[in-house]
C-alpha cells in the first residue's frame, strides 16, 4: 500500500512541477503540429500521396517530439541533486522511476496522440536519458542510442494507423503493441535504474 502512496506522491510532485511551467507544456505539441504541417509543404499537396504518407508522418513526428522532450524526465532533478536523493531513498527505485515516466508521458505523450505506442516511447526513452544524463551534451547521442530501439514500435504503430485508415482490422497490431508495452514496462525501469546509478556514480 505504501508503495502506491509513494508512487502517487512522486507522480503528483512531477505533475505540479510541469504545471508550474505551463508554457513549456505546450512545446512538444506545437513541435508535433509544425513537423506534421511541414510535410505537405515539402512533398507537394497531392491528396492521394499525402493520404498514404500520413501514418508514417504522424508517427515520425510523434517520435521526434518525444525524443526532444525526453531529457526533461531526469535533467532538472539531476541538476539540483534531487535524483541522487531519490536513488538513496529506502524505496524500490524502479517504482519511483515509473512514476517519473508516467508523469512525463501524461505531460507529453498523451496530448500528442492517445495510443498504445507513446508510453513505450517514454519507457524506452528513459533508459537513453538515464545513460546520457551525466554528459554535458547528451541530446544528440541519446537520439543515436534510442532511435534503433524505437524502430519496432514505429513499424507496428504505422501499420496500425494505416490499416485503420483503410478500414481494416487492427487487433493483431494492437496485441503486439500491448505486448511491447508490457515488456517495456517490466524491463525498462530496471535498465534505467542501473543506468542512473552508473551516471550518478
Amino acid at each position, binding site marked *: 500500500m505504501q508503495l502506491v502512496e509513494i508512487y502517487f506522491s512522486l507522480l503528483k510532485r512531477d505533475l505540479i512541477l510541469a504545471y508550474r511551467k505551463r508554457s513549456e507544456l505546450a512545446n512538444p505539441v506545437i513541435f508535433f503540429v509544425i513537423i506534421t504541417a511541414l510535410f505537405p509543404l515539402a512533398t507537394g499537396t497531392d491528396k492521394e500521396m499525402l493520404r498514404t504518407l500520413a501514418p508514417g508522418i504522424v508517427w515520425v513526428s510523434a517520435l521526434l517530439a518525444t525524443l526532444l522532450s525526453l531529457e526533461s524526465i531526469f535533467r532538472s532533478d539531476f541538476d539540483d541533486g534531487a535524483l541522487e536523493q531519490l536513488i538513496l531513498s529506502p524505496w524500490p527505485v524502479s517504482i519511483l522511476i515509473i512514476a517519473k515516466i508516467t508523469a512525463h508521458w501524461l505531460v507529453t505523450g498523451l496530448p500528442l496522440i492517445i495510443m498504445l505506442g507513446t508510453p513505450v516511447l517514454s519507457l524506452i526513452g528513459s*533508459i537513453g536519458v538515464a*545513460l*546520457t544524463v*551525466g*554528459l554535458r551534451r*547528451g541530446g544528440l*547521442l541519446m537520439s*543515436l*542510442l534510442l*532511435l*534503433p*530501439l524505437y*524502430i*519496432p514500435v514505429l*513499424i507496428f504503430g504505422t501499420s496500425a494507423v494505416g490499416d485503420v485508415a483503410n478500414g481494416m482490422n487492427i487487433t493483431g497490431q494492437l496485441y503486439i503493441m500491448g505486448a511491447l508495452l508490457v*515488456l517495456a514496462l517490466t*524491463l*525498462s525501469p530496471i*535498465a534505467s535504474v*542501473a*543506468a542512473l546509478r*552508473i*551516471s550518478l*556514480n
Partner: protein
Amino acid sequence: MWKFITYLQSAQNFYQFSGKAIPWLGWTALIIILFSLYGGLVTAPADYQQGDAFRIIYVHVPAAWMSLFIYMVMASAGFITLIWRTYSSEVVAAAAAPLGASFTFLALVTGSLWGKPMWGTWWEWSDSRLMSELILLFLYLGFMALQTAIEDRKTAARACAVLALVGVVNIPIIHYSVEWWNTLHQGPTVTKFDKPSIHIDMLIPLLGMAIGFTLYFFSALLARVRCEIISNKQHTDWVKRELT
C-alpha cells in the same frame, strides 16, 4: 577452469596469454578459410536455381552469423562487467563492438550484392531481416558512440554494458524474423532442428567458413584487446618494460 579465468583477470596475464594465442587462432583461421573457400567456390556443385550466384553465401551467411554471435559475446561481457566488474570483460566488450559492426556491414553489403541478381533489387525496405540487420548495425554504432562520449573508462564500460543488454531484445527478432513474417529473404536452411535443406557438399564448406570466421574474430579480438590494455595501462612498469 576457475583458476584460468581468475588468472586472466590480471591485465598483464591477459596480455601475455593473448600474445601466445593470436598466432594459433589466426593461422588456423587462415587455413580453414582457404580450404573452405576452395570447397565452396570450386568443388561444391552449382545451385539448380541460382547457378553460381549462390556461392556468395560462403561470405554472406557466416558474416551474418558472426554479426549475431559477436553481439552476444559483447552482451555477455557486458553482463560480466556489471556483476563482477572485471577488467578483462570491460576491454573485451569495448574491443568487440567495431568487429561486430564490420561483420554486420559485410553481411548487409554481400546480401545486397546477392539481392540484385536474385530479387532484382539492391535493397528491399519491406524485408524484415534486412531491416533488423540494419537496426543491429545502428546498435553497434550507438554502442561505439556511447563508448567514446563518456570520458571515464570504467563508467563508459558499465554504461555500454547496460546498453548492450537492452539491445539483446533485438537478437531473437533478427533470428526469427524470416519465420515470423513472410518476406523476400529466404528461411533458414541450416540452423533448424530437422535435416538441413542444403546439400552436404555445399554445407561442409559453409560450416568451415563459419568456424574460420569465428577463429578469425577471436584472433582479431585479442589483438584489439592487447592494444586497449597497452593504452589503458601505459603508465605501469610492465607495459614500459614490454614496449622497450
